[in-house]
């Protein structure tokens, strides 16, 4: 379980997060949504220990993120950052293989290699496995990095806008893949998402942030109402229902 207690963050005198209290139990997909500047990525980087905590406390399975050794956390929690720049002269297979690093520290066992192979197939990367990452398109590169994060094999996955650069086919495949590991392997995924309808279809829970505060938290059905959406995003949008799931017509 990831527990966020009383977390606040400010940059100079500008508050970015204000008194966030959240607990994310094991299993399921949680989507973090909100307008630009709501504090989603800041909250993300605090949970991912990319930025020091100023106030409050965050624990992953009772381990405080700011004092637990990085490697111990890396065996529980994998992170994927938006547009993470990656060195160029590395092949897709090498990049994906780095996902196993927290487990073997540079000496991959047969099991690690098998997991890398599985991740390559899962993300449709076998034909690209020996290509250098700088010869790939943005979407292919994103898939390689996502595959690396999956390959880390952690209970918790923290993904910051993983659908960036992905086409519809691969975006759907990634969300389905997340759904599968959440359902079958009790993994937990926390995703910062811009596409509200992806959240509507695949997430178990949606947490909405605005101005550094949690302003809505619940199942897609609870959160994705016209009133809530207006208070989150600042304009009125129609919500339809298809096959029992909310469908937000945000672009009209």
């Amino acid at each position, binding site marked *: 379980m990831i527990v966020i207690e009383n977390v606040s963050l400010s940059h100079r005198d500008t508050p970015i997060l204000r008194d966030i209290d959240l607990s994310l139990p094991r299993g399921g997909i949680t989507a973090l949504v909100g307008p630009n500047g709501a504090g989603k990525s800041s909250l993300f980087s605090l949970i*991912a*220990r*990319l930025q*020091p905590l100023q106030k409050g406390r965050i624990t992953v399975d009772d381990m405080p993120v700011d004092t637990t*050794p*990085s*490697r*111990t*956390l*890396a*065996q529980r929690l*994998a*992170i*994927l*950052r938006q547009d*993470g*720049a*990656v*060195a*160029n*002269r*590395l092949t897709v297979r*090498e990049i994906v293989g*780095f*996902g196993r*690093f*927290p487990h073997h*520290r*540079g*000496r991959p066992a047969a099991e690690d290699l098998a997991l890398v192979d599985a991740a390559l197939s899962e993300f449709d990367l076998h034909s690209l496995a020996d290509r*250098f990452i700088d010869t790939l398109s943005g979407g292919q590169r994103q898939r390689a990095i996502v595959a690396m*994060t999956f390959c*880390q094999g952690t209970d918790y996955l923290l993904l910051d806008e993983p659908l960036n650069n992905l086409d519809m086919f691969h975006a759907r495949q990634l969300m389905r893949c997340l759904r599968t590991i959440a359902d079958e392997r009790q993994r937990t995924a926390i995703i910062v998402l811009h596409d509200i309808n992806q959240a509507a279809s695949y997430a178990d829970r949606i947490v909405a942030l605005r101005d550094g505060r949690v302003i809505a938290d619940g199942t897609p059905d609870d959160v994705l109402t016209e009133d809530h959406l207006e208070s989150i995003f600042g304009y009125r949008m129609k919500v339809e229902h298809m096959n029992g799931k909310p469908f937000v017509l945000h672009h009209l």
Partner: protein
Amino acid sequence: MPDRRMIVLAAIALIAVLLFLTVGLRGNVQFVLQLRALKLLALLQVAISIAVSTVLFQTVTANRILTPSIMGLDALYLFGQTALIFALGGFGYASLDAGTKFGAEVLLMIALAGALLWPLIRTRMDMNLMLLMGVTLGLLFRSLSQLLSRLLDPNAFAIVQTASFANFNMLRADLTILGTIITLAAVVVSWRARHVLDIVGLGREAAIGLGVSWIRTAAGLLLLVAILVAVSTALVGPVVFFGLLVAALAERVMRTQRHALLLPAAALIAIIILVGGQTLLQHGLGGASTLGVVIEFVGGLVFLALLFHESRK
């Protein structure tokens, strides 16, 4: 095939070493060989330090066009030499105990690096800010040495000039061996960190995500860089000029960023360039130029040829 490339590099390096030892061998063979072996040891030590320190530095800073000289260590060395000559005069400078001088120089340079790294560790200061501080301090030291050189008499200034280029002709055996031991230790540590280096090369956030404790690792690697640079600079003078060339060549030849291949390739290329360059300088050009000029000229040509070859593919 990476392995075949490595064998070719090793073979060329071996040829360079053999040529350096044997070309124009005459007179008292044993004496000459002893002299050349000492010089060779210094050349190897410097080549490996520069190659390894530049690769480490570029990996930690995630920047392929930087060299450790941006930390201002060689500028501090130069300022130290100028200040010593200014204070003691040419004769006093020449009669300084080489061992004490070597030790003091190494410690001073590592102290400067420590001072730069301190805020990085204590307050998690941004690494780019730290590098900028290094640039500024380097500029300060350079300007100070320029100011002092203007005040020197011409004889003393000539000594400053000699001290500001790498010099492999006035080596003390004991210091060379001591320097080589320190370098070897630092190289062993770097080699053992080769897998972590691959991860560090992915950038700060990805590395943290994969379980690297960033501040400790980055500071440790930068300290390693400082030790390597300090020892070779104190031994022969400022030599970081060709680190950039070596690191870029290694990456192009090996076509990978895995440090298990990159580190040895860079070291071999540095040996080829430095030992080969010194042989060429002594026997081809009759010692008419400085090694720096030879290296930059030949190395630059090789680099251009590689770029050209690659763009045609």
